[in-house]
């Protein structure tokens, strides 16, 4: 019996070489989505537009599963290399803030949509995947695809891009980031992001 157990363990270790606590990516997305939406459904404050509360929720439940460095890198494309490590850190922090605020805003606009999860199969050895979901709106036309791109890291699967209806929330910044860098250098981009986040802060406090 013990022998059998050992073989079984050996088999598991052999087939999932890097897995420590790696929940499968589709399971991760499903769990987090359901958890967050359950909270939003019960929270009248968030539903009536309390962005601050939504931000707290996102920071606690969603952020740990995102790789913001990778996101910033993707959004900045080749300009990323132009930035020194200190600038890269500031850029990542500011971009994170912007994305969190956007995501939180979207949560406060949540009505009664449900999320459908499309079939997903993880091929052995895959470290970069796309998990497809869709937002079903009761009677408001076509469903909206909401896809997550995840990459396997030592600490589990991390989201590095989200596509809504085919629009990547990360690469959609690419042109405007590039324009900022062209006009004001890396520091120009940092300034714009900071200014944007400041105005966002002001409106979310007002709410």
């Amino acid at each position, binding site marked *: 019996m013990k022998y059998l157990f050992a073989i079984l363990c050996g088999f598991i270790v052999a087939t999932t070489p890097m897995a420590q606590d790696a929940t499968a990516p589709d399971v991760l997305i499903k769990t987090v989505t359901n958890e967050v939406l359950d909270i939003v459904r019960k929270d009248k404050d968030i539903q009536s537009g309390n962005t601050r509360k939504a931000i707290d929720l996102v920071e606690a439940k969603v952020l740990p599963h995102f790789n913001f460095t990778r996101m910033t*890198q*993707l959004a900045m*494309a*080749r300009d*990323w*290399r132009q930035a020194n490590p200190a600038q890269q850190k500031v850029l990542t922090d500011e971009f994170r803030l*912007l994305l969190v*605020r*956007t995501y939180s*805003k*979207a949560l406060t*606009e949540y*009505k009664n949509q449900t999320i459908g999860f499309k079939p997903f199969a993880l091929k052995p050895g*895959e470290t*970069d995947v*796309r998990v497809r979901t869709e937002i079903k709106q*009761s*009677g*408001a*036309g*076509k*469903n909206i*695809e909401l896809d997550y*791109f995840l*990459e396997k890291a030592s600490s589990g699967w991390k989201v590095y891009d989200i*596509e809504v*209806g*085919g*629009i*990547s*929330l990360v*690469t*959609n*910044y*690419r*042109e*405007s*980031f590039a*324009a*900022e860098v*062209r006009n004001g250098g890396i520091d120009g981009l940092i300034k*714009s*992001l900071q200014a*944007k986040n400041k105005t*966002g802060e002001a409106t979310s406090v007002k709410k």
Partner: protein
Amino acid sequence: MNKTLPTRLKSATLALLAAGLLAGCASSGNPKDPIEGFNRAMFAFNEGLDSLIVKPVATGYDAVLPSPIRTGVTNFFGNIDDLFIGVNNLLQGKIPEAFSDLGRVAINTTIGLLGVLDIATDAGLEKHNEDFGQTFGRWGVGNGAYVVIPVFGPRTVRDTVGLVLDVQADPVANHRPKGERDFAQVLRLVNGRANLLAADKVVEEAALDKYSYVRDAYLQRRRNLIHDGNPPRESEASLDTDRSLSVDARLEEPRAEAPSGGAVLVVRMEPVDTK
């Protein structure tokens, strides 16, 4: 010498376009948006129009009408759209989709009380999103420059031609008497705008520069629609980080899922599209 007026007009337009192209290249350096200066002005005009008239009306409409009624209005116009979505699927060689669309119209127009109820979706006939611009894209026509059109908003040159056909074929625009037609068009516009109120707030929150955010979202969205949700991952050679290139390679697969009829066109279109 003896140029007719249309020919002259044509060369004048061409010259203007060329000038815009050169000017645009010099200033913005974005090859997808050669007439950025013009577009920004038009965008500002549309935003002004929206914030002064369309958005306030849509907000009022949204506040006054109960959501089942708004859904009914959305479905009613959606049902009319389905007819032309079916025609466009047919033109793109997507026969099963076309039949599904026509089935939707048949079901929703009858049991769905002239389209007010979307029973077909509940019955498992998925709603599609097609228009003439997408059909051209499917046929291999490239985007052309990005253009912001008064009132209609973001388009590409290709989609503008598509839009002209969409309007030509539109049963609402062709409806008579004119009184009913105008009422229906206003209702459709306001209802459509009301459906976007939530998305609007998110864009305001997200955009560093609203003009380019909307432009790039539009271009990404159209690209996705033309490929029915499975566009080949955009070539990121410009990124020149080895890492993202390898990611691209892995994400290339969904191409295989594209309906077989269009696969050739999809491939052919790529060089034009990626730029």
